């Protein structure tokens, strides 16, 4: 099981590479420019939901970016939520 963190917009190679690796049982945390992948009704959020991984977004980053219209499968977390995920998942892969 892998905890993925994505800090790059949906048009980046980082997004494409990340999605190609994500699998059921993994989790993804969107941060920085990664938050735009959570926008409801976009190709990017649809692609993420099709991976069957658990999807999270850093609340502060989403607010900063004005990303309020989230795809249904994406849950908001704060920094403590991120730390909790790193406790649960034995390894993290940073995509940027």
């Amino acid at each position: 099981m892998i905890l993925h963190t994505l800090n790059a917009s949906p048009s980046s190679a980082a997004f494409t590479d990340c999605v190609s690796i994500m699998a059921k049982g993994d989790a993804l945390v969107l941060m920085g420019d990664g938050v735009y992948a959570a926008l409801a009704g976009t190709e990017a959020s649809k692609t993420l939901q099709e991976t069957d991984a658990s999807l999270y977004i850093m609340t502060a980053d989403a607010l900063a970016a004005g990303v309020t219209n989230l795809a249904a499968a994406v849950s908001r977390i704060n920094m403590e939520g991120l730390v909790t995920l790193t406790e649960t998942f034995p390894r993290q892969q940073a995509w940027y």
Partner: protein
Amino acid sequence: MTAATKKTVLLVLRHSPYGSGLAKAALDAALASAAFDQSVDLLFMGDAVLQLQPDQDSHPLGMKTIGRQLASLPLYDINHVYVDAQAAARYNMDLSKAPLQTRPLGGHDMHQLMVGYDHLLGF
């Protein structure tokens, strides 16, 4: 360095050789690991496959040639090198000419590979 318990480590390289400092940073991290007797494996993903392009010569740019440095990794007992098969195909690369011997993997196999390590270092 303290004699800490060994961990299995995969360096996941994702960036082109000269577009940033990340390829060099990853190479240095791999060599340092070998120097401290901590084995690491490498996965070249996405644009990082371009680090494996044959016939690189970055001396005109005043930089060390990444491809040539990669060729030295087996001397440091870094022998498990994996490559994103789809990315290599995207750039029409002939991996038999790469400076390193690599094992091509598909997306599912890369996930399987990654879950086998204690730590993933993404460069």
